[in-house]
């Protein structure tokens, strides 16, 4: 026996069936011919000999089939005939096929889309060599007495749920780097965020990342063109002004020309030479989803990336660098971590001047294979919720199909009995039914994959702001394909099992004899009824979800903000700090404010350090003079530096005192305006006008409160107005982080932006306007997740109701047709049409009530998990729950009405004769 001959014969039988057929015929013809010759030689007539030879050899088609099956094609042939038969059944019932395949495609497609997102956010790793060896360094410290006072970076959670900080000072990074024993390498990077890049005289804003000299080597990333950043680039400050650009920037701005190497671009107006282009798959070490466009060595920071300090590289107090290490395979992690803890303490003691009671930060590290993994923190919960909801949708589609198939398989009982009687095995019938289900689910799966392909960028698109280019790009890959295939097969088995079982359980005799015994077979429909209850309860869950998220969105859009966002246009200006070192930046914005205010069409114009409802905020310690409270939550207040017309532009009423005026200048007395919350928090509601305070913003220069304004929301619509104080930007030390201009205008953005741009370029032609959007768009952007949820869950809800409708109608119509006989008897014995109607509707409402109650119970139990995603209502919102229950009850009764009416109008004579 040999596998190769088995396979080659099987392959020939399968792929070249007609050739095999004709070979068998040839061989047979030769056999008959030879036999006829022998027989005629023995004296038979040729005609008689031919007849005898044929009889001896047996029928041609049986012979062919036996020979083919000797080559192991039996399973294949049966599968093919099952498939052919299944296809024929589907073509015969196009309505059923459309509903089945359509609902499966929607369910599977929704799952594919959400899985694509989930995979990217939760599963994908950095596209570097052995990402599993990467460790992200971090630390934690005592909040009150910790040695680290200034920090710029993100927190990450350890597997134990503890939050650790991931920023280090540059000198400490260099000391840790020497602690090498258990590590292959230690490297560092920092995303500097949005940076102005000028290429051939055209400026745009890109994300820039500073990296250590060993970054490329340690990650094992080879640029697709040129070279990466090397150790020699990361030496003396400014010695090597080089950059590696992303594949996306290369396509966008250089048309993938290889002459890009050696070209010069300006970063914040500092000339830099391009030395390499990253491969498209490389997104940096920070994020799996988004790649910065420019990578520069750390040695460029004091020159092109001035921020916070003259040189962050030299600063020992500013903690900002993200540090990663590649651990040696098989190294003792705990020991390595402990040695870094000791090294960190030593480094802190060696580099920082500490107060007497300062405590050391404690070292810790986490898996770095997904970078800082910020997307996961942001989206993990919504993704789990969406996965659950799409799971329900698919389950609902399954239940619906199982229901329809069950009804069909009962209708096909006669066919099954005939098959059984003709000698088909039960296994064979089971297999045939499952093949039909799998055929359906495979077609649904193909549809779903297609929908998944169409929609794979849908959610990333919805999530990114309308004024920013889409950052996240989903790639369909074999994992997604595998997932879709797996759920298709699983659904096929799930909804095909019960009908197949029922079909295989048919008695050859019973159905042939037909009728009579189904006068009252209540138990018969048990599986179908369970499915209806399941369908209704799943629908209730999905409708409740839709209601909760839609109402959340509506509550958010109705929530009072405290200011009027109408007719306000926003844009950002990030002046290059290399050209505008403080206080020149303040002078620049003063000049721009004045110039822009004069543009015709501008009703009112102001600027602020923080954009309202953008998630960003400034916070400082706030201490009213004469109060020295050490109460922890009475220490800090929110802050915004604003232009003189800020309050009038946003329509924020000044309740007491005055607004800022042009007489508040950089040299005049420092003044501030506070909101009501702050008055309540720090002054217990007493009139604060004229009171003096100090804050960590102005290095304890006493500032006088000159006015009180109404409360406004600051970071988000969800958060209540915080205690906030405002100061004129003109009295600030610097505006290094850039500002947002707010223009109140009745003109269209397209009409006024060119005028604004001209005015700005008359001051500095290299200053780009960033992120032009209306205040309303800005607010909508912060609720994008809620909008996606409202849209998706709304869609799921509608789908659920439609499927429930079909399912209930199907099962009730089936029940009625099964019970036509019984109904006929009842009516012949004197039952009225109304009684029959009530009987059928009563059964339907009984099922509905059980389903609705179960659904409400599950929805209430699961609602707890989404409490934090809701706004302005609780998860047991009575209105939503009642509406959902009412909707499903009316849908169920509506769907049963038609079959019930049909039952009520049955003609007893016909019904009794009905087979």
């Amino acid at each position, binding site marked *: *026996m*040999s596998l*190769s*001959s*088995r396979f080659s*014969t*099987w392959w020939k039988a399968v792929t070249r069936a007609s050739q095999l057929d004709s*070979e*068998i015929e*040839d*061989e*047979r013809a*030769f*056999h008959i*011919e*030879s*036999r006829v010759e022998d027989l005629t030689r023995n004296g038979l007539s040729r005609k008689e000999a031919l007849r005898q030879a044929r009889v*001896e*050899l*047996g029928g041609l088609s*049986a*012979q062919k089939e*036996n*020979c*083919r*099956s*000797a*080559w*192991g094609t039996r399973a294949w042939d049966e599968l093919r005939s099952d498939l052919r038969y299944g296809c024929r059944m589907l073509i015969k019932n196009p309505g059923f096929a459309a509903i089945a395949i359509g609902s499966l495609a929607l369910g599977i497609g929704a799952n594919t889309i959400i899985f694509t997102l989930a995979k990217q956010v939760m599963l994908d790793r950095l596209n570097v060599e052995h990402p599993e060896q990467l460790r992200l360094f971090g630390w934690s410290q005592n909040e009150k007495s910790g040695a680290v006072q200034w920090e710029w970076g993100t927190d990450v959670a350890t597997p134990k749920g503890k939050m650790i900080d991931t920023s280090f000072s540059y000198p400490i990074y260099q000391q840790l780097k020497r602690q090498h024993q258990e590590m292959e390498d230690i490297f560092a990077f920092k995303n500097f965020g949005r940076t102005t890049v000028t290429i051939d005289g055209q400026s745009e804003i890109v994300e820039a990342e500073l990296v250590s000299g060993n970054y490329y080597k340690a990650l094992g990333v080879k640029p697709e063109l040129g070279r990466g950043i090397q150790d020699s680039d990361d030496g003396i400050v400014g010695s090597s002004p080089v950059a590696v650009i992303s594949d996306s920037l290369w396509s966008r701005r250089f048309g993938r020309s290889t002459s890009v190497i050696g070209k010069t671009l300006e970063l914040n107006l500092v000339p830099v030479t391009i030395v390499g282009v990253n491969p498209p798959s490389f997104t940096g070490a920070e994020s799996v989803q988004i790649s910065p466009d420019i990578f520069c060595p750390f040695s460029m920071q004091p020159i092109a990336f001035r921020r916070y300090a003259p040189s962050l590289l030299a600063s020992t107090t500013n903690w900002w660098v993200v540090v990663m290490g590649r651990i040696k395979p098989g190294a003792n992690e705990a020991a390595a971590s402990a040695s870094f803890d000791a090294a960190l303490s030593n480094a802190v003691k060696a580099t920082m001047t500490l107060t007497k009671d300062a405590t050391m930060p404690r070292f810790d590290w986490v898996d770095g294979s997904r970078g800082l993994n910020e997307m996961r923190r942001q989206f993990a919960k919504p993704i789990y919720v969406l996965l659950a909801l799409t799971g329900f949708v698919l389950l609902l589609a399954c239940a619906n199909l199982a229901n329809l198939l069950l009804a069909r398989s009962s209708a096909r009982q006669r066919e099954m009995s005939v098959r059984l009687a003709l000698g088909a095995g039960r296994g064979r019938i089971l297999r045939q039914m499952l093949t039909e289900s799998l055929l359906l689910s495979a077609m649904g799966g193909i549809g779903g994959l297609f929908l998944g392909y169409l929609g794979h960028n849908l959610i990333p698109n919805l999530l990114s702001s309308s004024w920013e280019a889409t950052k996240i790009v989903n790639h369909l890959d074999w994992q997604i394909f595998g997932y879709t295939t797996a759920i298709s097969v699983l659904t096929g088995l799930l909804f095909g099992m019960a009908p197949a079982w029922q079909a295989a359980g048919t008695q050859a005799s019973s159905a042939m004899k037909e009728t009579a015994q189904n006068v009252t077979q209540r138990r018969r429909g048990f599986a179908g009824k369970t499915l209806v209850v399941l369908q209704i309860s799943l629908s209730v869950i999905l409708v409740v979800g839709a209601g909760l998220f839609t109402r959340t969105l509506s509550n958010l859009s109705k929530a009072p903000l405290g200011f009027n966002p109408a007719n306000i246009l926003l844009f950002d200006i990030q002046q290059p700090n290399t050209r505008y070192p403080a206080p020149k930046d303040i002078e620049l914005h003063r000049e721009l404010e004045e110039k822009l205010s004069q543009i015709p069409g501008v009703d009112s114009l102001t600027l602020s350090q923080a954009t309202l409802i953008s998630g960003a905020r400034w916070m400082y310690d706030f201490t009213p003079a004469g109060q020295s409270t050490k109460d922890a939550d009475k220490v800090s207040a929110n802050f915004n530096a604003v232009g003189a017309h800020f309050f009038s532009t946003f329509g924020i009423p000044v309740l007491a005192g005055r607004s800022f005026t042009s007489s508040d200048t950089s040299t005049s007395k420092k003044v501030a305006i506070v909101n009501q919350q702050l008055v309540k928090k720090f002054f217990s509601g007493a009139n604060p006008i004229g009171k003096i305070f100090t804050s960590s913003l102005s290095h304890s220069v006493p500032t006088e409160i000159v006015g009180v304004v109404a409360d406004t929301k600051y970071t988000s619509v969800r958060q209540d107005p915080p205690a906030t104080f405002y100061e004129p930007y003109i009295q600030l030390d610097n505006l290094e982080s850039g500002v947002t201009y707010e223009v109140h205008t009745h003109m269209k953005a397209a009409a006024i932006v060119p005028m604004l741009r001209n005015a700005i370029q008359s001051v500095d032609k290299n200053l780009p306007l960033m992120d032009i959007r209306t205040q309303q768009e800005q607010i909508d952007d912060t609720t994008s997740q809620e909008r996606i949820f409202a849209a998706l869950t709304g869609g799921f809800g509608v789908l659920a109701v439609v499927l429930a409708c079909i399912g209930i109608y199907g099962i009730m119509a089936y029940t009625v047709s099964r019970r036509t006989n019984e109904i006929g008897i009842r009516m012949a014995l004197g039952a009225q049409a109304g009684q029959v109607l009530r009987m059928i509707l009563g059964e339907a409402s009984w099922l509905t009530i059980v389903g609705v109650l179960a659904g409400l119970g599950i929805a209430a139990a699961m609602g707890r998990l989404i409490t934090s995603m809701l706004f302005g209502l609780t998860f047991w919102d009575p209105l939503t729950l009642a509406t959902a229950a009412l909707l499903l009850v009316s849908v169920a009764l509506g769907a049963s009405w038609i079959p019930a009416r049909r039952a009520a109008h049955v003609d007893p004579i016909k019904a009794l004769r009905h087979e």
Partner: protein
Amino acid sequence: MGRQNDLLQGTLDMMVLKAVSLGPLHGYGVLQRIQQISGDRLEIQQGSLYPALYRLEHEGWITGEWGQSENNRKAKYYRLSASGRRRLHAETEKWNHMSDAIGAILRATPEEI
């Protein structure tokens, strides 16, 4: 035909292998050779011959090849492969072993027990 219907499944395979081991044969030739060697005591049911040939080819014990018959017609010739030879050997041993055992049982007399 008829009386040999209950030939054990394996015996037909074994006889075909043996017939082919004496030289390449087409299907009809296999039939003739078996009948000739058995002195017409065995008659092979022709309907089951070809499925048996295909089964043996599927297993790789014989290989089929199209050629010219003695009267210049197209015919498929089967020859024994190396693994078929091993198989035939094993089958023959098994058969001999079994027929010895069965023979011993049938020859048994009361005295021997």
